[in-house]
């Protein structure tokens, strides 16, 4: 929806910490999988209505300033509430070990993550393309004025879209919690990767984001085995290459 949100990483972090709290309290990972997205949707909706709504007509730069502010606020709130210690939660029961397929061994939790990613990806693509809601959202994103003329309640659509995005980020946080460490600064590194993925895929296209994620994921893994030092640099080189060949991303519409 053409909003440059640097605080999206914070939603991911809040999702991870929600997972930590829920798992510590109830030992039930699946419950966290539900609680986090709902919590993030509420936070997302509130932020959109109170803060972001005024910014749509000012272009990207004020959005950078505001969302940068939010990242600072969120990281401080998390650190003062949970303390700076690095925390971790074990993968849900049954997914802790490793699976041996032929010669390669895969950690079963990684396979689980792969599975969930595919399922959610598919749901999103279907939802985005086929359902009425998806069409409405796409209209709202592609041409605000036209959508307004067609009687789409724009403010509500944007609030929903933003909240939905925040919920997804929260979900990603929960899924990532057992895989990575949970600590107050964890939002920074995922944010850059997420922005890279979205841009490589092409803005405004869900399939693009999925494709971008696959390209970056493979690029990172291959990169770190070939020359581990420069893996991070490799991802950006990949992004640069894609943007030079197709200036609006792999599946992006010509802006």
């Amino acid at each position, binding site marked *: 929806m053409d909003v440059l949100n*640097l605080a999206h990483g914070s939603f991911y972090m809040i999702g991870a910490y929600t997972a930590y709290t829920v798992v510590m309290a109830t030992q039930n990972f699946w419950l966290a999988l539900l609680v986090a997205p709902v919590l993030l949707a509420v936070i997302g909706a509130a932020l959109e209505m109170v803060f972001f709504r*005024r910014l749509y007509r000012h272009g990207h*730069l004020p959005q950078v300033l505001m969302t940068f502010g939010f990242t600072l606020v969120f990281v401080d709130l998390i650190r003062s509430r949970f303390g700076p210690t690095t925390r971790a939660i074990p993968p849900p029961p049954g997914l802790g070990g490793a699976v041996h397929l032929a010669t390669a061994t895969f950690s079963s939790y990684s396979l689980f993550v792969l599975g969930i990613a595919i399922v959610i990806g598919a749901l999103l693509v279907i939802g985005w393309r086929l359902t009425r809601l998806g069409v409405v959202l796409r209209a709202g994103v592609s041409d605000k004025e036209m959508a307004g003329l067609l009687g789409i309640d724009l403010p509500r659509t944007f609030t929903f879209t933003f909240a939905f995005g925040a919920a997804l980020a929260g979900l990603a946080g929960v899924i990532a919690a057992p895989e990575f460490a949970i600590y107050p600064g964890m939002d920074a590194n995922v944010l850059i990767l997420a922005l890279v993925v979205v841009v490589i895929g092409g803005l405004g296209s869900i399939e693009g984001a999925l494709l971008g994620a696959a390209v970056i994921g493979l690029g990172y893994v291959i990169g770190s085995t070939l020359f581990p030092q420069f893996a991070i640099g490799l991802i950006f080189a990949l992004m640069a290459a894609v943007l030079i060949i197709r200036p609006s991303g792999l599946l992006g519409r010509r802006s």
Partner: protein
Amino acid sequence: MLLALALASIPLWAPRFWIYIATQALIFAIFAMSLDLLVGYAGLPSFGHAAFYGVGAYACALLALGHVDGLVPLLLAGMLGAGAAALPIGALSLRTSGIYFLMLTLAFAQMLWGLAVNWTSLTRGTDGLIGIPRPALPGLDTLNVSLYDRGPFFFLCLLVAIAVFVVLESLVRSPFGKTLEGIRENDRRMRALGFPTFRYRLAAFVLAGMVAGIAGSLAAMSNGFATPDLLYWTVSGLALIAVVVGGTRSFIGPALGAFLVLFAQLGLSTYIDRWELALGALFIAFVLFLPRGLVGLVRRA
């Protein structure tokens, strides 16, 4: 002019620590002004401008550690080094526009940051290059004025800042500047009128990079080190914020924005415990109440 006089008086009354902060703010102001040449005048929102700030710092650091002692050669090294980096990056990035350009410049800056961290033989990785001597001032040695004292170094930064301000102000009033604004307003029309818009934008990108390189070399001299942190995306972010807070399409705006952002960041973080909360809230408040920045305030009044 009033502002310049006020700034010039700082070393006389301000306590040592705040002269240091003011010097850092001046260097950051030069960096922010160069960014607004891109963002405000050429309509190119770059999120990777810190790359040239960092390259300038490293170029100056490498030269200084290689026993080059002159002030001018060191500044030139920073400027030309950054310019040399800006040319290829600009040539590639300018093939895109809008948010893609923003992301592409971010990508190149992070690549250079990765290089600075990993090319240990040249940059000594995360430890960075430390112990960089400040150059001797030609001719002034007899008056035992050395750049090692805080006052003279502050004046050097002030002079460079004023020089950059004057050059940039005249640049945007020159035919080149007007053409740049035309390209920002309507690139298609300018091409139809016969302007090779890509070359103008690239020239603007390289010029802004060179000025950022000057700021970088001053930073290397001031702190005596060049570390990969200078190239990290948060530095580009802060510079962009200084421009937005100050107000685009002016140079006094970003300079004020730079002072505000730096005083807030350095001041808050050393004084209050939960400085990130305060800084974040300040930024949010700024966007809500001053969407067009400080200068916007003046213009509207």
